[in-house]
């Protein structure tokens, strides 16, 4: 689920995570996706960073450096208003896709 051609889905997962959990660093996002999807969605962990940086450039997320609970320096990401809108659109699009695929499968 982490190849470039399905970038949209990865974006959706990241944005959703940030909506649910607020400020989070890359590692935290990966961990959350794995936990929340009952380990079904396995993201190649490094691939989250190109996505995060791209979303940062698009203005969907904001980033700042901060210390973790364990005192490590990490870059934290936060959803922006534009990111929220994008999430909504992506969610709708995804719902449609899922409905379509499900209908298709049921038909067969």
């Amino acid at each position, binding site marked *: 689920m982490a190849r470039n*051609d*399905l*970038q*949209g*889905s990865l*974006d*959706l997962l990241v944005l959703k995570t940030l909506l649910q959990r607020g400020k989070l*660093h*890359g*590692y935290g996002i*990966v961990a959350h996706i794995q936990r929340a999807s009952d380990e079904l969605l396995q993201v*190649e*962990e*490094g*691939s989250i*960073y*190109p*996505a995060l*940086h*791209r979303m*940062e*450039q*698009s*203005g969907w997320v904001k980033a700042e450096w901060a210390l*973790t609970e*364990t005192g*490590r*320096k*990490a*870059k934290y990401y936060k959803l922006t208003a534009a990111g929220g809108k*994008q999430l909504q*659109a*992506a969610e*709708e*699009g*995804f719902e*449609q*896709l899922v409905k*379509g695929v499900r209908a298709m499968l049921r038909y067969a």
Partner: protein
Amino acid sequence: MALVRRVVNLFRRSRMDGEIEAELQSHIEMRIEENLAAGMSADEARRDAMVRFGNHVVMKERVTAADASLGLGNLWRNVRFALRQLRRSPGFALTAILTLALGIGPNVAIFSIIWATFLAPLPYPNADRLVVVWTHFKGERNATRANDYADYAAQSRSFERLDFESWNVLNLTNPDHSQDETGGLPVSPGFQSKTMGEPMALGRDTLPDEGVPGNDHVVTISHWLWQARYHSDPKILGKSILINDEPYTIVGVEKGGPNEQGGGVEFMVPLKLWPGAHSQQSGNVVGRLKPGVSIAQAQAELSTIDRRLAAQRNGGKDANLWSVSVEPLKNDWLDHKLERNLWLLLAAVGLVLLIACANVANLLLARGSSRRQELAVRSALGATRGQIFAQLLTESLTLALVGGAIGIAMGWGIMRLAMALLPDLAKQSSEAVVEMNIPVLCFAVGITLAAGILFGCAPGLQASRLNLSDTLKQGSRTAGGRGRTSTQSILVTVEVALALILLSGAGMALHSFWNLSHIDLGFTADHVVTALLQPRGMGPRGGKPTPPPPEQIVVQQHQLLDRMRAVPGVADAALTTTPPMHGYDKFQFAVAGQPIDKTHPSIADFEGVSPSFFSTFGIRLIRGRFLGEQDTLGTPMVIVVNEAFVRRYLSNVDPLTQRLLLPRITSGSTNNSEQPVEYQVVGVFHDVLDDEHLTGTTQPEMFISLWQVGWRYVAFGVRTNVDPAAVTGGLRSAVASVAPGMTINQVEMMQQVVDDQRTSDRFGMTLFGGFAGVALLLAAVGIYGVMSFAVAQRTHEIGVRMALGARRSEVVMLMIRGGMRLALIGIAIGLAGAFALGLLMHTTLYGVAATDFGSLAAVAALLFIAAMVACWLPARRSAAIDPMQALRNE
């Protein structure tokens, strides 16, 4: 500004590298920590973290790419994608690019002319301080009198220099003492180098103290004259040349202008004027303002001076009718008609470009429908609206730029063509260099980008607004959607309207040219050469010799005509005091037996001609007879008059019974003191245009025979049966052999004189016609495109109709009705625009009313037919639809 952020990132790269590395590293370390906490060994924890993370180097590169070059990379990717798309549908690409080139090319061409003519700064140092001072009488620009100039120059403080350029044309004199056509002017000394700031190519400019009589026989010559006549002789300085048959010493050669071609002011002799010097000359006043002095200040100062002068002028009579203006020096010597024509043409080509944009927008919209699925998939995969919009806009701009590049090349071609049609433009303003230069190219790129954005926005917005779920759900059948169809309809309607406006302009220009070509000149112009006969060595100070007796003049003129008729190629030769279309004079006369009105005396154009004049110029006889060889010095004086004369002065009587009273004429000079002479009217001829302007009115004319008076310095006209230019050499030697004291001057082809007057109209007509043709083509293509699309889209509906029993002809009519409705609305809107254009245009036209119903009806009909054909071609295809296939096509 995401793009700005990315560009900034490019420069912060090394720091960014460190940050990215730190971020990735912290991720891996957090994973290791967690693994250790879960009980893995240190080695195991590290290996697991690395495996989960993926290829570290690749990830880092991808992050860097996302940060630094995503925007630019996207742009490039979009451009590449756009080019690939265009390659994939070459038909569409070719149509769109050609359409754009057709829209952009004419704009570039006309703008290059307008730029050079009106907008480009003059190529002189500090040209913004150069001004022209015009004297106005009753609001009309007038030559300034030398005496007034002298007072302006002496009393004003606003000018660094104020110079006078006399209108007294001087001519070079040939070695055989005949007058050369090359002309020059007396000008304030130092005008070229000091006022205009043009360095001399050779030698020096004239000096102030050379402007006074006695020292004034020095001359500076133009670069062209130096090259053409003196073969760029490097030792020309100090040589003596004859001007008006007096020797002048060459002291300097001017720097060459960009497109000098001779025929202008080719030399300047110094002329200094000061108050009280009393000169009869008049001319232009050109000055250079002092730094910091505004035109308004200079104007105010000169006006004050001029009001003082006006009080003394003619004893203060009409003082309030005079005024003076200071204007920036620019190319405003152009014919006003031509000037207006150029601006109208710029507006016209602007409309062509709009039509082209509408066409391409329609093409893109139609194509967009087949790409909806593609775009929907893209957006389902996470492309934002902005990204899709950007991609479509990039495609449009790529199209525009390719079209623009071809358009610039096309524009260059049109420009050359236009200049060929209008040689006067280059001649009248030698400073105006019409070429593809930086400002013109900037304009071209500007309109190209504007066009790209204009036609790219509509489809881009439409596509980026597309509703994902609808599109994916509906499939391709009803993918049209109401919104786009109506946009297309509006675009086509606008196109038709604009095309009609352009066509109406072309129609009016054509009508005007037709009128001009069919003016009844009253004479036949083709194959006629005219020239003036002048005495050799007519210097400005040479006194007039006493004329020989009339008998001698007449004998010599008979010989001259005989000799001219003997020149090979000459069919007939005639003498006249003034050839047709070379102006007229107003001569007082009286009709014998009618009371004389002293306050409004009867006046008419009065010319002496040889009897062969009527046959040589092909003049038509209305009543009575022409002047004949039998009317000589001894026989009763006879006269012929034209129809205008009869209408004005002899309307209630039989003209052939009337006698006219005129002063006696002996050897070409009138004698008013003697008793007037009676002339019997023997014939009435059809009006011969005497006005210099083709559109002028013919005056009442009365012609007498030269054989009855003896009139020495006249002009001649020769009808040839070969190319008229081929006989001039023979005519020159004929004159030289019969009258060694005379020379030929101002040789003109009559047809050329007539054609030159139509230059501006021919220019307007050809370009307007050409551009309107392009507009018509584009509009037709637009209708065709939309109709084809409509037919393709309604295949299903047509199938249903036919299955339900609709006949093929009904289906075709249905489709045509749809298209023609748009065309008719467009034509109706266009007619309103055409009326407005008529109001703007008709003043530059001849014999065309502000509302030219004839040409409007013609162009509306033309457009209607074109629209009909454009509708019918695709509609015909709808008849070929097989209902079964159309319905199964789901």
